[in-house]
């Protein structure tokens, strides 16, 4: 059961380029497996997420490979299987809802129930209205609905024909925060109840983390990592993943100094900056990149008696810029001896009385266990 995807899709600048054998401008190489769980495809715009979804749905035809959902082969270039969109039995929720503007809510939801006896159709529509809490809106037209209501109707419409798989293309990008959070819970609940694979596209890493059972990270047309949210967020495989999941402080190609070989730690050197890291995280032996999430950087007053510059991974730094996000602040620090920039995120409630003016100096500490290597 679940979903098994391994296909390629090539894009050429001009149609004739393909015949002339020129190189494609973009190649999507989608390769991943997932169970009957909530799978998030995560990456920047243009990384191939939506194309992947369209190939799974059959709206686009891959150039090669195979797509298998719940043991049904949707596409296999070797055996010439390519089920039509209609035959795939899937639910698809579009970014802009794509509700039929000339049909009321009830007819929108019933549209996929073609061929059902009228009694069953009415019953199914009722069930969907109940499930998504949109009772009372049956007679309304899409133009009379709010964004959140539209998205609920779109979900109801996609789920009504009992699909084998549900595909959602950035479904919440036009909704406000409160509605978004409610619908996220709803989708999770629906996935648990139906037990079908749900594939959800987003470029918002908070959304990805909160909703996913499994996250598949795309960058530049390739799958970079496939794992649980914890694995992906705390153990990114490479720089692209680290950047995408919010590891804002990244130092590439640090030298590994073996001198502190005695215990479980080693020293990394990036330019003049030296940090101590846990040896167990190391994957390659000669060079590595490392990073730390902004919220993991700890800040102390310059005259603190808790820590000093002599402590491990502790540096003097000046404030370069501040962005207040309301509950937290994003502060860019410049390390005094190294000119490196570090971005830290701090909770306002813990620093109510601290003055973060530009130029003020602080001690910043990068706790060894919070540094990720990739």
């Amino acid at each position, binding site marked *: 059961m679940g979903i098994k995807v391994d296909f390629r899709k090539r894009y050429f600048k001009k149609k004739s380029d393909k015949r002339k054998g020129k190189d494609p401008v973009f190649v999507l190489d989608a390769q991943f497996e997932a169970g009957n769980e909530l799978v998030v495809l995560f990456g920047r715009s243009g990384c191939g997420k939506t194309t992947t979804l369209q190939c799974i*749905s*059959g*709206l686009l035809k891959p150039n090669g490979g195979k797509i298998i959902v719940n043991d049904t082969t949707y596409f296999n270039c070797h055996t010439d299987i390519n089920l*039509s*969109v*209609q035959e795939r*039995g*899937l*639910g*698809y929720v*579009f970014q*802009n809802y*794509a509700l*039929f*503007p*000339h049909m009321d809510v009830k007819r929108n939801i019933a*549209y*996929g129930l*073609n061929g059902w006896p009228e009694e069953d159709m009415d019953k199914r529509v009722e069930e969907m209205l109940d499930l998504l809490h949109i009772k009372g809106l049956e007679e309304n*037209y899409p*133009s009379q609905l709010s964004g959140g209501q539209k998205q609920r109707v779109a979900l109801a*419409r*996609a789920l009504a*024909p009992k699909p084998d798989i549900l595909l959602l293309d950035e479904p919440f990008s036009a909704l406000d925060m409160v509605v978004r959070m409610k619908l996220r819970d709803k989708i999770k609940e629906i996935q648990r109840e139906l037990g079908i694979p749900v594939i959800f596209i987003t470029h918002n890493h908070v959304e990805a983390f909160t909703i996913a059972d499994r996250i598949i990270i795309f960058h530049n047309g390739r799958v970079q990592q496939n794992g649980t949210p914890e694995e992906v967020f705390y153990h990114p495989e490479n720089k692209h993943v680290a950047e995408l999941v919010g590891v804002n402080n990244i130092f590439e190609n640090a030298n590994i100094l073996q001198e502190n070989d005695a215990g479980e730690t080693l020293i990394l050197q990036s330019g003049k900056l030296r940090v101590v890291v846990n040896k167990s995280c190391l994957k390659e032996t000669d060079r590595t990149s490392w990073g730390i999430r902004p919220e993991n950087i700890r800040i102390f007053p310059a005259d603190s008696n808790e820590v000093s510059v002599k402590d491990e991974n502790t540096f003097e730094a000046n404030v370069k810029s501040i962005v207040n996000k309301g509950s937290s602040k994003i502060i860019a620090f410049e390390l005094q001896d190294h000119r490196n920039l570090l971005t830290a995120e701090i909770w306002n409630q813990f620093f109510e009385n601290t003055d973060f003016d530009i130029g003020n100096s602080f001690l910043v500490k990068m706790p060894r266990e919070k540094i990720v290597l990739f």
Partner: protein
Amino acid sequence: MFDQIGFPLLITLKIAGLSTLIVAITGMLISYILARREFHGKWLADIIVTLPLVLPPTVTGYLLVVLLGKKGILGSILYNLTGWTIVFTWQAAVIAAFVVSLPLMVKTTTAAIEAVDREYEYAAFTLGRKELDTALFITLPLAKKGILAGIVLSFARAVGEFGATLMFAGNIPGRTNTMSISIYSAFQSGNNDLANMLVIILILMSLLSMAITAKIINNWKI
């Protein structure tokens, strides 16, 4: 009185109505294909459909005679088989009206269909609906304003058709003397009272059809 006003009015409505009906159906089919399908020679198909819009109507009429006349390429076959020729019949007037008004239908309807977001069609496909079903219940209803505009323009063009009709269907009293042609004949023979009457009827008809169209479009929400 009937021969001079009633017959031209009825034959015009019959010719324009029938031609518009055929134009509407074939126009929607051609427009859907032009808007939604990619095929080799699409540009050529587009040119052939549009050509009568730019050709002088007398040229269109002449070409129709060459093609469908008694000695024409297709007409001769028809004549040999049945002994009947379409030239100088009201059916010929329908064909002339059809050919000259089709481009107006196709141009407006193609633009209207192209303006329908393809995502609606994709949504219908994912809900298990086939392309024909989707075209009939999603695409065409969403393009209905453009389609209606095309139908109104085609009807108006068919009512006003003169040049190609005169070449292909002639001006035979009691058979093919449509309103437009009757106005010309009345004017030529100095019967200005009749010409005035026919002109007023045509103007009223045009105003009425515009008013009805506006009313229908106003009542449509989408």
